[in-house]
């Protein structure tokens, strides 16, 4: 870093990304809270640990190869291995480095997206998947498939962007679409929880063991989502090239501002909450899920929308997600325990496509060589949800099922994953009470 001003700009940028990381930790805290609350009491500790242990495995695999994928694979079909060498785990920038003030915070921002990706999948499959099987999906989605989609569609040099004009500023498709698709791919093979469907095929509600806490978990996710949004921007970029015009940009280096995304985050949240409340007749869980789905639906274009456009798209996105969720549940007997496929997959894919109509003709990259179109966005949504989302997890789920290590044994599911631990806890408690009685009578 040269002079004082350059230094300040660099360190501001580093600090900007840094601050998104602890905020995004709250997304994961919220996911754990709501996933555990939605599970039945007999499964809660295992539900918690299944989600929590994605943290170390996704972290180390993002260090070993996930981040490299992002830099190596933008070109179709398999990228240019040479461009990724800077993110190989033995490169000198992938460690404490005095000449580099960005790699660590940038890696961490991507990593927290990876945790979110794996966590979205986690919620859908609770109460019957093996932790070991889930952790394979966590690595697959968190460190491989979403990193491929980011290389292709969430980088100014990705081929989906440079060829199709794909635009997805706050990850409607590249995180939410793909993870909804990935969850559905597992669910199709894993099957519903015992008792979810009546013999005639009618779905039953399996109530959360702590309904209000699930909603507080979603509220904590909203809080952390601010970090997710900020991390999708580059905070200060010289757009003029000669130091006369600086701005925040999207990940595509196209102009936006923090003010813009603040307006749009809040207005799409409002639209989603109102739609969710109305559709579900005031159900707390669907209302808060609606708030999240509203943001997700508007995310693809929230770098550019008017706040009222974000509001309208939030409303329509929630309507689409809600209707599709119940239609798919009845039609295909899919037991999505937290509605993750709907909130993330359907609302996100809708959001990608909506941006194609709303931003039709906008330049997709700074040099204007390609424009945003509905067909580019429809193609992109299919790539995310189906090609990189559904298909890989569906295939891996079939393999794990064939090996007999996908689903927990029937007896364990019926008794509850925590049954034996809970028996131990009760007996430990009784031992202590007996010891206290002995002391009291001395």
């Amino acid at each position: 870093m040269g002079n004082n001003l350059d230094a300040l700009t660099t360190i501001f940028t580093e600090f900007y990304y840094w601050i998104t990381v602890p905020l995004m930790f709250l997304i994961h805290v919220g996911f754990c809270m709501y996933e555990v609350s939605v599970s039945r009491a007999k499964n809660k500790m295992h539900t918690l640990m299944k989600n929590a242990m994605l943290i170390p495995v996704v972290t180390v695999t993002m260090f070993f190869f996930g981040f490299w994928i992002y830099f190596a694979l933008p070109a179709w079909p398999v990228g240019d291995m040479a461009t990724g060498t800077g993110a190989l785990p033995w490169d000198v920038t992938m460690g404490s480095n005095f000449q580099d003030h960005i790699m660590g915070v940038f890696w961490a921002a991507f990593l927290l997206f990876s945790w979110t990706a794996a966590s979205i999948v986690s919620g859908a499959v609770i109460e019957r998947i093996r932790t070991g099987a889930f952790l394979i999906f966590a690595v697959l989605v968190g460190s491989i498939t979403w990193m491929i989609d980011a290389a292709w569609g969430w980088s100014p040099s990705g081929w989906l962007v440079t060829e199709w004009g794909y635009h997805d500023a706050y990850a409607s498709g590249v995180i939410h679409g793909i993870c909804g698709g990935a969850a559905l791919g597992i669910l199709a093979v894993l099957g519903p929880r015992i008792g979810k469907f009546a013999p005639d095929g009618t779905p039953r509600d399996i109530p959360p063991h702590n309904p209000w806490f699930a909603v507080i978990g979603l509220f904590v996710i909203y809080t952390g989502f601010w970090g997710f949004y900020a991390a999708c921007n580059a905070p200060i970029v010289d757009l003029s090239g000669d130091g006369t015009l600086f701005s925040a940009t999207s990940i595509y280096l196209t102009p936006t501002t923090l003010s813009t995304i603040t307006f749009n985050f809040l207005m799409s949240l409002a639209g989603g909450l109102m739609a969710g409340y109305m559709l579900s007749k005031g159900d707390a869980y669907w209302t808060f899920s609606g708030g999240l789905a509203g943001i997700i639906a508007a995310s693809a274009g929230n770098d550019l929308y008017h706040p009222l456009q974000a509001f309208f798209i939030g409303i329509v996105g929630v309507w689409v997600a809600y209707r599709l969720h119940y239609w798919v549940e009845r039609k295909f007997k899919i037991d999505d325990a937290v509605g993750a496929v709907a909130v993330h997959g359907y609302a996100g894919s809708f959001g990608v496509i909506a941006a194609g109509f709303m931003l039709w003709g906008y330049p997709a990259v700074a040099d204007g060589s390609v424009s945003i179109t509905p067909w580019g966005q429809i193609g992109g949504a299919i790539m995310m949800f189906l090609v990189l989302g559904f298909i890989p997890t569906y295939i891996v789920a079939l393999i794990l099922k064939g090996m007999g290590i996908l689903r927990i044994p029937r007896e364990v599911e019926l008794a509850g994953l925590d049954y034996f631990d809970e028996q131990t806890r009760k007996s430990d408690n009784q031992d202590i009470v007996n010891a206290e009685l002995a002391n009291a009578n001395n």
Partner: protein
Amino acid sequence: MSTGIESWGAENLSKIDALYPFVGSEKIMTIIGVVIWIGWQIWQMKFENNSYEDQTSQLSGETLTKVISEDD
């Protein structure tokens, strides 16, 4: 002797890139790290599968009915 850097002097600072000790061991550290990761995931699956086998054997018909009925 130093495991890495020997001076924070201004003339040295602008040339320093890696701050970590034992520069040159990155690839061997990566290999060890990958072995730990894969070893951990294999251990986790074995441990989990064994505990399910153990639990299943203790949950015969009547016990299971009782456990489910007492569920709250």
